């Protein structure tokens, strides 16, 4: 079922039969999906289902074994550099430097993404106001509470105004209130047209997404809005949807 990739400007991520093999192990097995501009796309799956590998391919960290992917209008196989310029990324591990001050971290990443000094300064001021971080501006990031750090890390990952931001389990270890605040930031970014591609283990977060895909053993088992998925499996919440699908897995989780 070959399909020609259409360069629809509204589609920010297009994956077509994207596959990654490590030796004889197929980590990601022919996955295909599309994500629209400004959409919050939840990428779910048990540990070892292939989420991180898929995300790495889409963000240019890993070259696909076969299949095609277009991110922010550029081919992930051949235009990696252009893809990198137009995406943001926040990893599972904390992704800022503890021994740099808040503003120094922002300045560093602004510089890495080639932003002008004046632009960095202006946006930093705005961001500090938005996050209510005025007093923390000159503090070392390492001295901030985890919730602050996560919010800052997210803000830094979209500081250069990328078309898409990839969030790899961004709220791990954060309390529910901070998680709530974190999602407010995500909604705000999405409303400004930034596409959000997020993996998570929290099923309440899955409910916040516009659409959710669930990966099982390297394949996408289901993809729809949370509402439709619940209807399809005739259950009350996303947790039950997930349980239902993840039970099929034959892979050992790591």
């Amino acid at each position, binding site marked *: 079922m070959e399909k020609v990739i259409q360069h629809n400007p509204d589609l920010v991520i297009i994956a077509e039969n994207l596959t990654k093999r490590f030796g004889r192990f197929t980590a990601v097995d022919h996955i295909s999906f599309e994500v629209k501009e400004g959409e919050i796309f939840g990428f779910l799956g048990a540990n070892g289902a292939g989420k991180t590998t898929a995300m790495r391919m889409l*963000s*240019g*960290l*890993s*070259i696909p074994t076969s299949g095609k992917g277009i991110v922010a209008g550029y081919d992930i196989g051949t235009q990696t*550099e252009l893809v*990198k*310029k137009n*995406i943001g*990324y926040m*990893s*599972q*591990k*904390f*992704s*800022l*430097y*503890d*021994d*740099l001050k808040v503003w*120094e971290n922002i*300045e*560093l*990443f*602004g*510089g*890495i*993404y*080639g932003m002008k000094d004046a632009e960095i300064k202006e946006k930093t001021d705005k961001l500090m106001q938005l996050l209510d971080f005025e007093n923390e501006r000159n503090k*070392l990031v390492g001295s901030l509470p985890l919730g602050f750090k996560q919010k800052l890390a997210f803000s830094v990952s979209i500081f250069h105004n990328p078309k898409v931001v*990839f969030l790899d389990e961004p709220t791990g270890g954060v309390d529910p209130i901070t998680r709530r605040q974190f999602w407010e930031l995500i909604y705000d970014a999405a409303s400004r047209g930034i596409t959000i591609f997020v993996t998570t283990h929290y099923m309440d977060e899955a409910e916040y997404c516009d659409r959710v895909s669930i990966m099982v053993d390297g394949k996408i088992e289901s993809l729809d809005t949370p509402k439709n998925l619940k209807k399809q499996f005739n259950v009350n919440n996303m947790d039950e949807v997930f349980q239902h699908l993840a039970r099929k897995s034959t892979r050992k989780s790591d």
Partner: protein
Amino acid sequence: MKQLLSFIRKEFYHILRDKTTMLILLGIPIVQIILFGFALTTEVKNTQIAVLAPTNDDASQRIVDKLNASAYFDVTEHIHSTNEIQPIFRDAKAKLVVVFEDHFAEKIRHNGVAHIQLIADATDPNAATSFTFYATNIITGYQQELMGETKNPYQITPEVKMLYNPQMIGAFNFVPGVLGMILILICAMMTSIAIVREKEKGTMEILLVSPMKPIYTILSKITPYFVLSCINFATIMLLSVFVLKVPIAGSFLSLVVVSLLYIFVSLALGLLISTITNTQIAAMLISGMGLMIPVMLLSGMIFPIENMPLPLQIVSNIIPARWYIAAVKAVMIQGLGFSAILKEMGVLTLMATILVTISLKKFKVRLE
């Protein structure tokens, strides 16, 4: 360019904020130079000696005075019988006992032959060899004074000249050694740890996702340590010239050129270590065990390479410090020109090329 500058600035923040590490890095050369220069020395100085002169005549007195007057010896004990010799050593009152025979001066004058016995504490064989050698020299010197008087027609006088280091100062040997060790320590160990730290903390992933070119990452990691190495090089040079009085006999420019090359080799080595390790501990162990010990033992810094068994001599060839130390000795101590260190420069250049090629390849592979 903006990318690179932002990143280099960040690397400097890392180093400047970690004050303990920075102090250690800047302090190591000073401590080492002072330790090697004043405390850990193999030079013979003020060795305590005891004298047994049964007939206290002018000739034996003259020799004792000469011994005492030299910087090597202090006459601390005068004993009167052979029974007292053992206790002297047992109580560590002296390292050397000089025994004159009875009627020493008389026998020289009448028979032309008199005996002196030197009894040395050879617990430390090297030291014993050195100070008995100095004592013998002083006694021979007195003998020559006497010969001048009697006009012996047959004389062979060996005139020993210690080239490059006439006073046999140990600093001449260890300054190049310390230089070789410090530079490789700072460059290789610190660079590898700095890169691996990013891997360990997960920030490397962020850098790889960013449009930052890998070569920029490498360059900015290297820059601060390059600066630190240059500061250390300057510190060691200043200390050795002004505190230890080791002059730079040859061209300072040659010295700088070969040092820059060596720093480059060390940085490349650090880069290579960072590509094969994933934790800071592993990077530290590999650079500590894999570099420090071979550099100290096999580079000729402490033990002369010529004295090693053949297999070790062959191994010593792959140690960059060996070539660097040889080149520094040639330029700094022997005062030889640039043409004398072409071989060392060649070997170091070859090493740099190989190391940079491998590590750049490996660094790229990690991105796939």
